[in-house]
């Protein structure tokens, strides 16, 4: 009797959360699956079409390009947004002055709404009076087309993305570095290890888990890139910046083809779940 009552109270407290999760988290995952096999415009009754949506998605001329761009973006963003913050954190951890200022400054862009960062950089990239070309000009370098050329557009997006996101990665690394016991460095030094060897044999093994975890998190985050191509290039020039998430958004909200958008979403989900599974395993290892 008492157990029943305790359970009833507990579920009373839980019911709001259960309702929210059911309708807005668990059901949409199932819905994604259903949607990818339907033809629907949200007005007429949905029709079951089997694998048609996947075929449509595959036949889209932008499909291959979208995946390639997404992979390229992810790779470039990892070089800039994953490796650079680690180096920055290593350097910051060595500095004894202005620590609070530097941490504050590097995290400042993270606080800005993404739309601010994106519109600000759109202005910097302006081929005419834009700041970047003015700086190039001041150094006597020729101007770049930035967002308007298919060779520089994608990297321009990576730059914005890195600028606005690297603060949080840097601070997480910094916290991990500060957890390394100083005795390890002392011992390594007594064994005659130089600075590079101390990094290789102490710093990196000690931060291995967080490095791997951040790698997975960053891959999952960057593969979903959307706001940068949506606001800055509209996928262009010549599909050079069409990403999978952008294509999905286009299919759904410009073409009203929610089915093929759902199919694209499913494909992206399967790819990302692989990384999420790795991440889960790492988190387990972390706790053990």
């Amino acid at each position, binding site marked *: 009797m008492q157990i029943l009552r305790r359970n009833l109270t*507990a579920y009373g407290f*839980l019911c709001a959360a259960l309702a929210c999760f059911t309708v807005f988290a668990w059901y949409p995952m199932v819905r994604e699956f259903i949607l990818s096999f339907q033809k629907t415009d949200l007005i007429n009754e949905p029709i079951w079409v089997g694998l048609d949506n996947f075929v449509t998605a595959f036949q889209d001329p932008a499909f291959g390009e979208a995946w390639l761009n997404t992979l390229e973006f992810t790779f470039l963003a990892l070089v800039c947004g994953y490796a650079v913050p680690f180096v920055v954190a290593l350097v910051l951890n060595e500095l004894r002055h202005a620590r609070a200022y530097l941490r504050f400054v590097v995290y400042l862009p993270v*606080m800005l*709404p993404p739309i601010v960062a994106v519109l600000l950089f759109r202005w910097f990239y302006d081929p005419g009076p834009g700041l970047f070309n003015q700086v190039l000009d001041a150094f006597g370098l020729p101007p770049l087309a930035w967002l308007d050329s298919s060779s520089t557009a994608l990297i321009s997006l990576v730059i914005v993305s890195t600028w606005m996101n690297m603060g949080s990665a840097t601070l997480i690394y910094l916290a991990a570095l500060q957890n390394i016991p100083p005795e390890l460095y002392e011992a390594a030094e007594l064994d005659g290890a130089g*600075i590079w060897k101390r990094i290789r044999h102490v710093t990196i093994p000690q931060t291995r888990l967080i490095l791997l975890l951040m790698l997975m998190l960053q891959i999952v985050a960057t593969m979903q890139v959307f706001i940068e191509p949506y606001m800055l290039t509209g996928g262009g020039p010549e599909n050079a910046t069409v990403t999978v998430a952008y294509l999905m958004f286009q299919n759904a909200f410009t073409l009203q083809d929610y089915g093929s958008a*759902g199919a694209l979403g499913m494909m992206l989900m399967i790819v990302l779940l692989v990384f999420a599974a790795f991440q889960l395993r790492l988190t387990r290892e972390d706790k053990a």
Partner: protein
Amino acid sequence: MISVGARAATRGKRGRKRSPRPIEVQFRTIVSPHQLNSRWGRRIYWIVLTAVLVLFTTAFVFPLYWMVTGALKAPEELAQMPPTFFPADPTPDAFFEAWDLFDIGTLLLNTGYYSLGGWIVCMAVDVSAAYALSKLRPAFGNVILGMMLATLMIPAMVVLIPLYVTVVDLGLLNNPWALWLPAAANGFNIFLLKRFFDSIPRELIEAAQIDGAGPVRILRSVVLPVSRPILGVVSIFTIVTSFKDFVWPLLVMTDSDKMTISVGLSQTAGAVTQNQVMGGLLITSIPMIIVFFIFQRHIMAGLTAGSIKG
């Protein structure tokens, strides 16, 4: 005493008037204190420090400076090449123009309303769920928690479409609940809160039970007061996230008088002059920068505590 002596000795040897100040070391890192305070170590240290300071200020503060001064310049000056470093004739006109053109008052009010409302809904839902899972321990509690945490593995963009379709089916378009309810389904908040509640000593709860307090009373007068730190962190993150959100409000709040400020800005940015855009961007950034100044310590702590332990 020894160090003073040593310093005097080096001074004597090098014949310098000013004694070089050693760099203070509170904690040991990769570079040993000894290396750091060697002659070359110190030189390299100051060079690196200066370089990092200059680089960081240029990379992260200068764009904001350019935004502020851009907003203060007249449109002609803004288009001028080469650009002026200081506005020749700073006027705040762009702010007022932006304020009127974008209808920023309404947009800010909307955004504030959505953030605060979202915060209340989120806290009510997540705190009670975490409390039930941590202290009332219902049957299948772990399964439910596991399923809630599993949603964190699903990337947001991937379920965007089915979530939108669901909201359309429920007729929640242009209704603030379309922002609040999905935000409340946050497995991470529940996990953080539950972990903190787990650490509250049982004796405290049992004492309250003996005094005849029911579960609601225990939550209100025992659990919540001791959980202030975690409640603070979760609150700040909830509010900041909802203020920064772009894609979801873009989809579900489409009426121009119901938009959030991010969405409103993105819609009008192409139609107005650049200094007005900058004025609008500045106004949009100010609330978050103020929040950052006030809660800096909590945000940094929450970032590292919240992520994963190192």
